[in-house]
Structures are given as C-alpha cells and as structure tokens.
C-alpha cells in the first residue's frame, strides 16, 4: 500500500472535492462559537455612523482562505450603518480591499462617505505604530489619490482611538499579535479578527484572554458568517467539499498507518 502512486491520491482528492461542488450534499453547517462572538459583537455594539477600521493584511497565496471573510463582514458592518476605513500593511492588500469595498459601492454606498481605502503602508510593525499614532501624517492620500482632508469620512480622525472597532483580516505578518500589541492594547480599541486557517492556533490565545472579542477562521469562518448575515456565497457552497476533503485526508492517514503497522508486524514475524 505504501507504494501507491501519489497521483492516485491527487486524483481521488480532485474527484472527492469536485463532486460536492457540482452536486451539493447539503451537509449541516453548525456555527462555531468564535464566529458567533464576532457576529454578536457587531450586532450589539456597532451603531449608525460608527467608524470601523478594517485591515486587509494578506497576500495572494492565502487569500482564498481569508478574502471571502471580508464580503459578509463588510455587508454586516454596512447594514449596521458603520463607516469603514480600510488599510493594508501587505502590498497586495489594497487590491483585495478595493474588490471587497466595490461590492458595497455597487449597492449604493458612497466612497469617501461610507467607506475609504487608505491603501498600503510599508514598514510592517513600525508602520503600524506610526499609523495608529497619527493617521493623517502616516497616510496623507488614499488609494485612489484623494487627499484625506477632502474625504468626509476622515474628518476628525486623528489616531486609532477614534475607531469604535478594529476588524483585522490577516494571514501572516503583521498578524493578530502585532495588532494586539500596537493598537488594541495601547489605544483600547475593541478588536475582532479574521485569520487564515494555518495561523488560527496562534491567534486563539488572544480570544481566550479576551484581547480580541471573536475570530473568523479561514473559509469555514467565511461560510459561517455568510450564513449568519444571510448572504450565501462561494464559501458556503464550498463547505460540503471541505467536509469530504477532511474525510478523505483522515481516511488516507488511517490507511497509511494501518499499512505501516501491518508491514512492521509482518516483518517482525518473518524475523
């Protein structure tokens, strides 16, 4: 069994993941407590006109895992009447922010009034510190080339403490720890997070300690949020596939281990 061509496993994964996408199985999707915490925090605390800072800190590689979270979250924030300021500390972030924000622009939200994209700020954690301390100084112009003074949404915004909520979407660095130590802690801004699945275990202790109020984890988190805001999208449609994928991987691991142990025991018997 250990000599099976790896391409057989690839083919099984392709078929196993594709079939539920073509013909959904309708498996139940319970909402995790972390996603529920995010939804409930926004529902209870965000009111008409509140200013929310949303960071898009992920590159192209992990984007399929994190980017889908931005759409239902933005939808929820906008439905609550929040005004959203987007910022990125990853070079590709503004591109993703534009795509997500344009989905709201298409629904009638106005650039510069309901939302703004401040673009990318180089310098990772150092830039985060400078941005949190003095926003107009760190970002004199937005991603579309407008001066911040000309944007009604930025009127009176000086530093990070002017935001009612920070929602950071991250996949690597700057990540949850960077945002917690440079913004959430020093400026006492309530924080929610959306993370790539791989970095979820490292982000979880910050929820446990109460430093962040909720956490969306990967595509699954996006799917759960789509369900909560009743905005079914690609992530929700992918959940059957995700479950089948996990079943396949667990099966492969079990079969591999059984084969390994069986061969070991046979070799022992043979002496």
């Amino acid at each position, binding site marked *: 069994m250990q000599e099976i061509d790896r391409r057989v496993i690839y083919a099984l994964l392709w078929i196993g*993941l594709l079939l539920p*996408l073509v013909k959904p199985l309708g498996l139940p999707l319970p909402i995790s407590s972390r996603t529920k915490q995010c939804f409930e925090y926004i529902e209870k605390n965000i009111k008409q006109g509140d200013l929310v800072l949303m960071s898009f800190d992920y*590159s192209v590689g992990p984007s399929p895992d994190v980017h889908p979270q931005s759409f239902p979250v933005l939808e929820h924030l906008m439905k609550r009447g929040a005004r959203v300021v987007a910022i990125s500390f990853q070079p590709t972030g503004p591109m993703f922010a534009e795509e997500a924000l344009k989905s709201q622009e298409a629904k009638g939200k106005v650039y510069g009034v309901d939302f703004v994209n401040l673009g990318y700020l180089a310098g990772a954690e150092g830039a985060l510190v400078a941005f949190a301390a003095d926003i107009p100084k760190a970002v004199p112009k937005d991603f579309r080339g407008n001066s911040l003074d000309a944007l009604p949404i930025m009127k009176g915004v000086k530093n990070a403490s002017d935001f009612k909520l920070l929602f950071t979407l991250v996949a690597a660095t700057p990540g949850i720890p960077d945002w917690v130590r440079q913004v959430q*802690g020093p400026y006492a801004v309530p924080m929610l997070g959306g993370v790539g699945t791989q970095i979820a275990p490292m982000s979880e202790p910050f929820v446990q*300690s109460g430093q962040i109020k909720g956490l969306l984890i*990967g*595509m699954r988190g996006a799917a759960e949020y789509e369900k909560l805001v009743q905005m079914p999208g*690609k992530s929700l449609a992918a959940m059957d596939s995700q479950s089948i994928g*996990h079943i396949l991987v667990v099966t492969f691991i079990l079969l591999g281990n059984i084969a390994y142990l069986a061969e070991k025991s046979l070799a022992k018997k043979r002496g």
Partner: protein
Amino acid sequence: MRISTDPGIWVSALLCLGIYSFLIKENPAYRTAEHIFVGLAAGYSMAMGVSNVTQKAWNPLMKGDVSQIIPLVLGLLLYARFLKDLSWLARIPLSLLVGIGVGVVMRGVVVSEFIKQLGATMLPLNSIDNNIIFFGVLGCLSYFLFTKGVKSSAIAFGSRVGRYTMMAAFGAAVGNNIQGRISLFISQLQLLFGDWLGIIK
C-alpha cells in the same frame, strides 16, 4: 455549462492548470506559470514600494520638507552592500532598523503577550477547559526546565504532561494547515469549474 468569455478568467484558469500540471510531473507549462507568478508579485510589490517612497518621502521633500532626506539617504545606504568598499555603510540603516524594530515590539509585548496571557491562564479550576489550560501550561513550562532537580518525579510527570499538551497543539496546527490547504484547492476548483467552465452553479 456556460464557458466564460472574460479574458481575465481564461488567463487565471490556464495559469492555474499550468501550476496543477506539476502534480503529474515538472513541465514547461508549470514553469511558465510559476515564473509569471513570481514576476508579477515582485513587480507589484516594487510598484507599491516606489509609490510609497514617492508619496511619503520624495513629494514632501520636493515641497521643501528637508527632514525627508534622512529616511531617503538611510534607504539608499541599504544598497551600499553591493559596493565592495562601501558595504559597511549598509550596517547603519540595518542597525537602526533592528534597534527600532526590537524597541517597537518590546513596547507592547510585555503587556499583551506576557502579562495578559499569564492572566488568561489563572483560571478557577471549575471546568474541564480551565483544567486543561491550567495544567497544560504548567506542564509545558516544566518541560522546558533544563536545570538541576529536573529528574524529580513531580517535574518529570509535569514534563510528560507538557509533552502531550504540545503534541496535541502541534496536531491541531497540522489539522488547521490541512484545512487551509483544502480551502485553497477548493477555491481553485471553483475558479476552474465555476467561473471558467460554468459547470458549478
């Protein structure tokens, strides 16, 4: 089935297939897609970097803000490492970057990642979750005791608990990793069979 007429989708789909062709074996389609990806990523990052320098340092300097000369010169000095005789100059901005970086991190790390995290482990032992967190942390800490007395039975037991706790944590990390990889693959299937070929509705 409704095949896309969007050229952007066609390009993404063909490059995606090029990358996945590696699963069969290394081939020119894979290499082409890989090189395009690396080139685009590097080009995009460079354009963003240039735009940042222009907007934040060069333009203010042109408007008379002479203080911007300092970051510009320090930035240029980083490239001195390519000049054999002047390579030592690159150490100046590098040392500043390291010093400031460490200082900036240390500013917040003590409270957010030490005191607050310690506080989060001081829990009433009235639930299974709290017991796992409390004894798991104690166990992990005792695993990293490398001093005299480490052979005492209590420490050895704690160390064993720590080892199992860490193994469970690493297992969770691997599980999350697999979940993440499957998500990435599903999104590509959605691109190929949904956006491109129109088989997935």
